[in-house]
């Protein structure tokens, strides 16, 4: 009987070195190489996030401010772009989402003093483990005094009234547009795009066109509500 060659246990490959973050030169090159599609993705993302957090959390800041702050973080020490892992545009888009959430959180924490939201956002630093440290952390108290609790409840109620009005207008706008109404139902049922398409048996083209109609209407609503001509 022929002996099979002994199988050797594969050697563990040496740990690959941590890739270095992009240099300022890499970042500059990435900006210069941005295509029209890239800048649209960045711009439309920032506008969408401003709509999401609402005018109060945005505190007078617009999509350009959000892009600018995200980019400052990429240039600074708090966030690092690893160009081998992710394209610059997608990385910046991720930072934009994250900063918008930060703005919304600060707004949540400083509801009765909106100007603090911007200040806290500017002063917050990231520690060595990536945890964000607010200069107000030491002062934070979980218990609101009755006045603060009332201010928070009023602000929440106001936002809820606005959202209710938005939802009613969206429903009214698409009352006769069955595909759009059903796509919205799918979104609210936590389905993703592929699941909605499959459930509603929509072609890719129909789905995209429907989504665009919804997008246009939401944008119009937000612009009217903020009194601005957004993106």
């Amino acid at each position, binding site marked *: 009987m022929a002996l099979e060659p002994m199988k050797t246990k594969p050697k563990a490959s040496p740990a690959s070195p941590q890739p270095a973050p992009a240099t*300022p030169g890499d*970042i*500059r090159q990435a*900006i*210069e190489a*941005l*295509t*029209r*599609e*890239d*800048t*649209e*993705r*960045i*711009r*439309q*993302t920032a506008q*969408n*996030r401003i*709509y*999401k957090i609402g005018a109060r959390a945005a505190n007078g800041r617009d999509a*350009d401010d959000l*892009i*600018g702050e995200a*980019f*400052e973080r990429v*240039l*600074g020490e708090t966030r690092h772009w690893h160009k081998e892992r992710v394209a610059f545009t*997608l990385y910046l*888009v991720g930072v934009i*989402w994250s900063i918008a959430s930060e703005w919304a959180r600060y707004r949540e924490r400083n509801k009765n003093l909106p100007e603090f939201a911007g200040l806290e956002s500017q002063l917050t630093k990231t520690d060595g483990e990536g945890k964000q440290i607010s200069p107000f952390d030491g002062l934070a108290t979980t218990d609101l005094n009755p006045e603060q609790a009332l201010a928070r409840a009023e602000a929440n109620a106001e*936002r*809820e009234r606005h*959202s*209710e009005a*938005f*939802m009613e207008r*969206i429903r009214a706008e698409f009352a006769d547009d069955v595909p759009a109404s059903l796509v*919205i139902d799918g*979104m*609210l049922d*936590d389905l993703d*795009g592929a699941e909605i398409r499959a459930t509603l048996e929509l072609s890719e083209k129909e789905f*995209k066109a429907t*989504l*665009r109609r*919804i*997008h*246009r209407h*939401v*944008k119009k609503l937000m612009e009217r509500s903020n009194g601005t001509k957004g*993106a």
Partner: protein
Amino acid sequence: MAPKERSHTERFEKILDFLGDHIRSAPGDELIEAAREEGRDPGEENTRLKGLLLRKFKSHQQRKLAEAREGYDRELASISGGECILPDTVEERRALFIATLAHASQLQSAFTMQHRDLSEFSDEDIVANLKKFYQLGLLPDHPIRNRK
């Protein structure tokens, strides 16, 4: 247990998150088309946004450079400050320099490799290096250091 009823705000945010996710992953031509439908020129937007980012980049670099310059100036000022009292005579300064090198053996090879012969060092070189050693805390506790 029945699922928790979502607030209107949560429902509205869900729609915005869905649209945001779509923007993140949609093919580029779809975004261009959407921009045109809104009456925007994607080419102009490209130029504008790249300009904005490049300006931010430039001002960030200038700020970093200014900070580095300030740090360098501070270091220079502290090196040339009057804190470090060196011996009065050329011979004593040279002796202190050689004693420091003997004390910090890691410096010796660097200096002898660079200059081969320590006797080639001028008094000015020696004073500058002694000040650097002082800043680095490398000066040995030499009696002549305390002399005026």
